[in-house]
């Protein structure tokens, strides 16, 4: 505890990830940032995977066969979860930033979380049975 302006940027940057003694709103905020980081990482990996196409259809099919396992399927479910949560929460934030439904922002957040869980469960069932 000291003057926060003197703290190293990395120390300050890590402070947002602390849900202790906070409300569900803080959990929503943290999830929004984690999903943003996750989706950015996924985008990079996706581009790397697509670069396999440059080595021909055979190499790409072999690569796809190698990653067709439960671990990668679980990771793909996480991408779907992150996409839905981040997208729906983004719509919520846009709405309340325009002054729409600010009083109901927590109910909107809970709705976003419930929809994300339900949609992720449906996707998980389909993806694991594929």
């Amino acid at each position, binding site marked *: *505890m*000291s*003057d*926060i*302006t003197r703290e190293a940027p990395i120390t*300050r*940057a*890590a*402070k*947002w990830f*602390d849900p*202790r*003694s*906070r*409300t569900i*709103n*803080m959990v*929503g*905020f943290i999830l*929004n940032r984690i999903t943003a980081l996750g989706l950015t990482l996924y985008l990079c990996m996706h581009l790397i995977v697509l670069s396999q196409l440059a080595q021909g259809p055979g190499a790409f099919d072999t690569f796809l066969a190698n990653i067709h396992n439960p671990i990668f399927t679980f990771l793909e479910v996480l991408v779907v979860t992150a996409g839905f949560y981040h997208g729906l929460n983004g719509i919520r*934030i846009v709405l*309340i*930033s*325009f*002054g729409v439904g*600010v*009083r109901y*922002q*927590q109910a909107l957040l809970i709705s976003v979380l419930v929809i994300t869980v339900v949609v992720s469960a449906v996707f998980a069932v389909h993806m694991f049975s594929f």
Partner: protein
Amino acid sequence: MSAIRWTVTFQVFRKKGEQASHFDEFKLEVDPDEYVLDGVERIWAFHDHSLVYRHACHHSTCGACGMRVNGAEKLTCITPIRDVTQDGGVVRVEPLRNFTLVSDLAVDMGVMYKHMDLVGQHPVNLDTNEAIQPEARPAGPTVDRPDYLRLSDCIECGLCVSACPITASSPDYLGPAVLAGAQQGGILGDAQVFHLVDSEDGVWRCHSAFECTAVCPSFVDPGWRIMDLRRQVIAESFRQLFGGSNPKETGSKEASK
């Protein structure tokens, strides 16, 4: 007050100067309906006179006794001990976050007060250099003098600043208390305030965590006010885009809520 007595351990944050921080423990026998500040004052009075903390009014008006109690921001003069612990339990008392520590439980809130001045929330009438009298304040929320509204609602306790995850990571952010003050005073009649609010470290730095609203003891609802400021800034920007006159410079004002 009840006849029930609880034995509670107060864990109090201590730090003087450059010394390393630590917690001192004080076992107190308390009435559970006493307030956390009562316990802190008893520690100062009977156990350790070197304990530094801030307090004044004891009835949630001055905003001086804001601290973190068991991790959450509380106005300690109105926080009953039974609300934060149980018989045999612990009350962990720490200073507010996101302010410069003065000593032990006291923090320097000067930056917040300076920012309040920047958005037109002055402690004195700038024209006469006199303290603003309560009877001089307009009754309604629609006013022509934003400076008259200071302290009419927000008690400037700093709990919202401490709870805000963005202030924790971005020290230049104006913060929820200051932005709520700007919303109360109105932003459309003052170009300087408008540009300060409509800036990187103004309303657009907020990430809608609404922790400020959750901890505010005066029901100022800073989260809602920041969103209302955004709405005003967006509306004004659209108006400008389609050739509207510029009230920021002509001085007209939208009624604040």
